[in-house]
């Protein structure tokens, strides 16, 4: 069994603000990330899939198929966008990197079988580095 990981990058802006909290509480909880005008990051995302090597090709994952899926589901909709305004999932959900990792797992899982119709490979995890110091990892099996 192999785990194959591909790294991608996208730049996007967001604002962390929970509508159920007061403005003051939001400032206390999120600090600078609550700035009303938002701010941006160069997100670095690693997508990992697991599977056995195919007997014909010697590859467990075709990176070009993974690229196509990630481009369609994540990079296209997120690149140079305001996550709060431009991505439906974040209209009413705070786009923390935790929630972003969950949303990306959901997006990849929902059309995974169109790109990888066989039993293998399976999506294993998504790892998001919001900055070089803040890293969030989501196990894809926890996403229905």
């Amino acid at each position, binding site marked *: 069994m*192999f785990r194959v990981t591909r790294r991608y990058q996208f730049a996007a802006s967001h604002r962390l603000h929970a509508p159920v909290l007061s403005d003051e509480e939001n400032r206390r909880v999120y600090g600078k990330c609550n700035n009303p005008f938002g701010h941006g990051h160069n997100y670095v995302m690693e997508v990992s899939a697991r599977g056995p090597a195919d007997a014909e090709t010697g*590859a*467990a994952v075709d990176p070009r198929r993974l690229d196509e899926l990630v481009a369609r589901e994540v990079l296209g909709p997120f690149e140079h966008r305001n996550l709060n305004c431009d991505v439906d999932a974040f209209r009413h959900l705070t786009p923390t990197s935790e929630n972003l990792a969950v949303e990306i797992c959901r997006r990849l899982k929902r059309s995974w079988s169109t790109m990888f119709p066989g039993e293998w490979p399976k999506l294993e995890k998504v790892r998001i580095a919001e900055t070089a110091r803040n890293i969030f990892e989501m196990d894809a099996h926890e996403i229905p």
Partner: protein
Amino acid sequence: MLITRKVEFSASHVCRNPRLSDEENQRVFGLAANPNGHGHNYLLEVSLEGDPDPVTGMVFDLKEMKEVLNREVVEPFDHRFLNHEVPPFDRVIPTPENIARDIWRRIEPHFAGRGGRLHSVRLYETPDLYVDYFGEQPCSA
């Protein structure tokens, strides 16, 4: 506890299956099927798993680990054309998956029955693509 040592090597390869036509190879492997080959700076991370020795405080002697990786991997692979010069890649397609598995087979005996058991081989083909191999496992995981 895991301990990890990194080494690098540069090598060229071509990914083609001789049973497929030129057109099919191009479709399956893309640019990697270009017949004259191309190269990468591979980065290899090898992790051993074990408990620190009560006397030395070490899972495994990193100097010795470095010697094993240099002798078994860097020397045979560095600045070589894998398909032409490094068996089994005259008959096994040198995808990063197959290279990682071959490296596992080359180094695993040197760590077996010692303080640190080979846990994983991580091979970066580029900074944007890497493979982890954990040895032969059933496909249920």
